[in-house]
């Protein structure tokens, strides 16, 4: 039998292949992110310094809205033809199925973020390339945290009729510590501050969040999938 990681890769490959063929959630999430960026650009009439102070918050609001659209599909894409039953009935461990789905959602969300980041920089005149390495680190850590929690809730509510409404209600309160760190760290970078000293706390907070929720989700998923 394939190892757990091999199974996770097979599931991730399958999810990416089907998504890239249909482009259902990627098109919806990317267009949604771009529309929100345009609306925000009309909504705020701030001085440059004031805008820099809220720039990280704006970016992560857009990312978290788009993220909910991506992770919502993680398990609901298994509903047509009862494919989820086949996955659960297979000898593949639940954590491997979950990990594969989370990795696929992570990569899809990164793609949406990569599309919307230059647009954000252009609309709001933010020089986001100046600390690119640190920004990428924040994006990777925060996106993984969003994906892992979002995919876990996607599994919890997969059989709920109003799951598109339920997911944000469940997801955003849990994401508050992650969003605070991501917003704080990103704002600091856009204001020209390095992620050292006090600002490194944001990175520590993101790593802690990711570690705790990744372990929790991988442990709990078997109980969530088979009830």
């Amino acid at each position, binding site marked *: 039998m*394939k190892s757990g990681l091999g199974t996770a890769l097979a599931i991730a490959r*399958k999810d990416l*292949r089907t998504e890239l063929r249909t482009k259902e959630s990627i098109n919806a999430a990317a267009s949604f992110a771009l529309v929100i960026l345009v609306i925000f650009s009309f909504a705020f009439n701030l001085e440059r310094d004031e805008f820099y102070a809220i720039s990280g918050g704006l970016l992560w609001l857009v990312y978290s809205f788009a993220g909910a659209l991506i992770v919502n599909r993680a398990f609901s894409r298994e509903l047509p*033809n009862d494919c989820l*039953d086949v996955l659960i009935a297979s*000898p593949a461990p639940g954590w491997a199925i979950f990990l594969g789905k989370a990795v696929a959602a992570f990569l899809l969300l990164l793609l949406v973020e990569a599309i919307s980041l230059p647009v954000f920089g252009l609309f709001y005149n933010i020089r986001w390339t100046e600390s690119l390495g640190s920004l990428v680190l924040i994006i990777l850590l925060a996106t993984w945290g969003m994906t892992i929690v979002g995919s876990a809730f996607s599994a919890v509510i997969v059989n709920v009729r109003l799951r598109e409404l339920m997911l944000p209600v469940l997801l955003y309160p849990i994401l508050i510590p992650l969003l605070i760190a991501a917003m704080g760290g990103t704002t600091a970078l856009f204001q020209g501050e390095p992620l050292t000293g006090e600002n490194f706390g944001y990175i520590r907070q993101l790593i802690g969040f990711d570690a705790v929720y990744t372990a929790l989700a991988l442990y709990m998923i078997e109980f969530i999938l088979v009830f």
Partner: protein
Amino acid sequence: MLAVAADRVWKYFGDYPALRGASLEVRKGACVALLGRNGAGKTTLLRILANLSRPTKGEIRASVGKSGIGYLGHGIGVYDDLSATENLILFGELMGVANPKKSAAEALERVGLARVKDGLAREFSRGMRQRLAVARAFLHKPEILLLDEPFTSLDDRAIAVLQSLLNDALASGATIVMSTHQIREAMELATDVALLERGKVVFAGPRAGEMLSDPTWLYRTYGEPA
């Protein structure tokens, strides 16, 4: 020797007991027709045997792990946006098949889908999708087959493919448990019969001559009045 057994299994959905202490023992190599009216608990029992659901009370025993079980439920269990080959290779990988590509090609040949092996499942006709589902369920040559109303809404070609695969599986010593309303088709294949009524197995035993000649005999003799 037992292949799979349910021992006083209860399953509640909210306050409703779908199974009320159902017990069933299936010996290796048997083909059990699981009969019962709508809502009797056939699907719930099969899902529990297939590890898709946990019993609220009671115990399930199986002689093989998940890799030795094949399940065909109400849904066809294939991805519309993958090709027939991609679907079977994926399930082969998940089920631990040694050479998924080779097994997928053989399975597609067997169910008559080799010429459309690279076509997406969503472009297939209903009958072709059903045959793909049958190929998927038999791909890893399971020792125990759990089939939930397998003949329902199959076209004639898919029925022929399924019957041939089931006969081959039985000949090779596999165990089959299938729920069905199509009593005549099931009785031709079955070695044993179990009747579920309101979440309980009220009869389990070898198929008798009366059952073959008169499919409603079992309901009249052991079942509750309709």
